[in-house]
């Protein structure tokens, strides 16, 4: 995986230099953007609701037993917006959208469509990478904002309905408001923006370097998802340290 880091960095740099063409490719950017939303919104809802619910279930009874029931909202709120929503949604998008990117670009490579673009003097980075990079870099942070809100709702519902926690929803949210500040949410959103770039660059790189026919497409898809997840987790640690100043 790490032998390709240089190539991926170069691809990212070329895509950044090509960003001014994004406006010309706006139709493809919007198509990709809606594809990401369509493919993922329901899944994001389900996943984030139950993540909030599980965090409340894991922490709530313990905090209530120690007479810290007023801390449940803050713990669930912080865990979701700082860490769980950005990381888990990024892993979900790596699986759903990153794999699709690698498969689509990989099959274009195998079936000579990318060669055809190059013979028409159409830069594959402008045509294929930039629209995907821009759309996922916008869509994933928006999905994460949505996931944070739904995750908090999941936590609130379980905290209220579970007999061992039984905190009124108003109490949950007022504690959450006391603990979670706008900066926490923005940190989570910023992380997801970086993860989106990781997914796009890793997946497009895998697609563009696909070899050995249809079997190679399958290999590229697997590598795109696995490498994205590994890099996301590593980058998450680095970003968390930087953002916490720890």
């Amino acid at each position, binding site marked *: 995986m790490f032998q390709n880091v240089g190539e991926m960095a170069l691809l990212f740099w070329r895509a950044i230099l090509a960003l001014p063409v994004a406006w010309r490719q706006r139709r493809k950017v919007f198509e990709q953007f809606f594809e990401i939303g369509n493919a993922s919104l329901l899944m994001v809802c389900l996943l984030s609701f139950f993540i909030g619910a599980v965090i409340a279930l894991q922490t709530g009874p313990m905090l209530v037993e120690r007479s810290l029931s007023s801390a449940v909202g803050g713990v669930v709120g912080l865990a979701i917006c700082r860490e769980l929503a950005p990381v888990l949604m990024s892993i979900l998008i790596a699986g759903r959208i990153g794999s699709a990117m690698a498969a689509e670009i990989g099959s274009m490579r195998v079936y000579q*469509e990318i060669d055809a673009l190059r*013979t*028409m003097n159409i830069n594959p980075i402008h045509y294929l990478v930039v629209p995907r990079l821009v759309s996922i870099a916008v869509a994933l942070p928006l999905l994460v904002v949505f996931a944070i809100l739904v995750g908090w709702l999941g936590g609130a519902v379980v905290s209220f309905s579970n007999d061992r926690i039984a905190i009124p929803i108003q109490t949950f949210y007022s504690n959450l408001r006391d603990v979670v500040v706008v900066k926490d949410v923005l940190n989570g959103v910023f992380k997801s923006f970086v993860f989106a770039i990781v997914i796009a660059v890793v997946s497009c790189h895998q697609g563009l370097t696909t070899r050995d026919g249809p079997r190679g497409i399958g290999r590229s898809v697997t590598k795109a998802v696995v490498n994205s997840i590994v890099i996301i987790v590593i980058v998450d640690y680095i970003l968390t340290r930087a953002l916490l100043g720890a």
Partner: protein
Amino acid sequence: MTSKANHRSGVGLQVRGLRRSLGGQEILRGLDFDVRPGEIFVIMGPSGSGKSVLLRHLIGLETPSEGEIQVDGQSILAEGVMNKYRIAMVFQSGGLLNSLTVGENVGLYLTEHQLKTPEEIARVVAEKLEDVGLKGTEGKMPSELSGGMRKRVAIARALAIEPQLIFYDEPTSELDPLSSVVIAEEIASLNERIGVTSVVVSHDRELSFGIADRVAVINEGRIITIGTPAEVRRSPDPMVQEFLTAGFKRPATV
């Protein structure tokens, strides 16, 4: 239909000392030849002879280990050459973008380079599709077309570039005899109509000798013989003769 008069004329291609090694194996072993402006030049050879690798070098998709390919005296890999000379390629599989309609495929070059307004592009697309006998197929997807139709769409896409040089990779492979004849006639008539230079890579002997102004026979990365079809037929080289006369004979039964 586009006339020869309003097209820029075909350009010549020069190949000098072309060598390419892949994985320690020498695929192209020092090729030197010229393609003259406006001619149909066919590169023939058995499977694995290096034809397709040669073609990928000629269009600038691969970088040679040694040697150079020039278009009108300028290296094909030099900055701006692909913009200065309009060069098109018809891939063996067509190379159509499967996510785009036939019309979008044909107009792709003009759209991406913003050379014409959408209305003008639609007109050019309709005209080029009519040229290859596929009028009214703009809205179809490539997956809805037969192999022959896909190749003709690929030719229409090449024509939309108004090329001075077209490369064809195995244009009649996987086609039935009737479709092969249609494609061969199309290649020949394009040269007459618009004066484009055509480089065709094929192992189809009928196509090659039917349309070529000159033929080069390549084997194991070397040119064995080069000349007019008549000259190549008279070549004393045993490999050339074997390739040109090979045919299936059913074993005699007792």
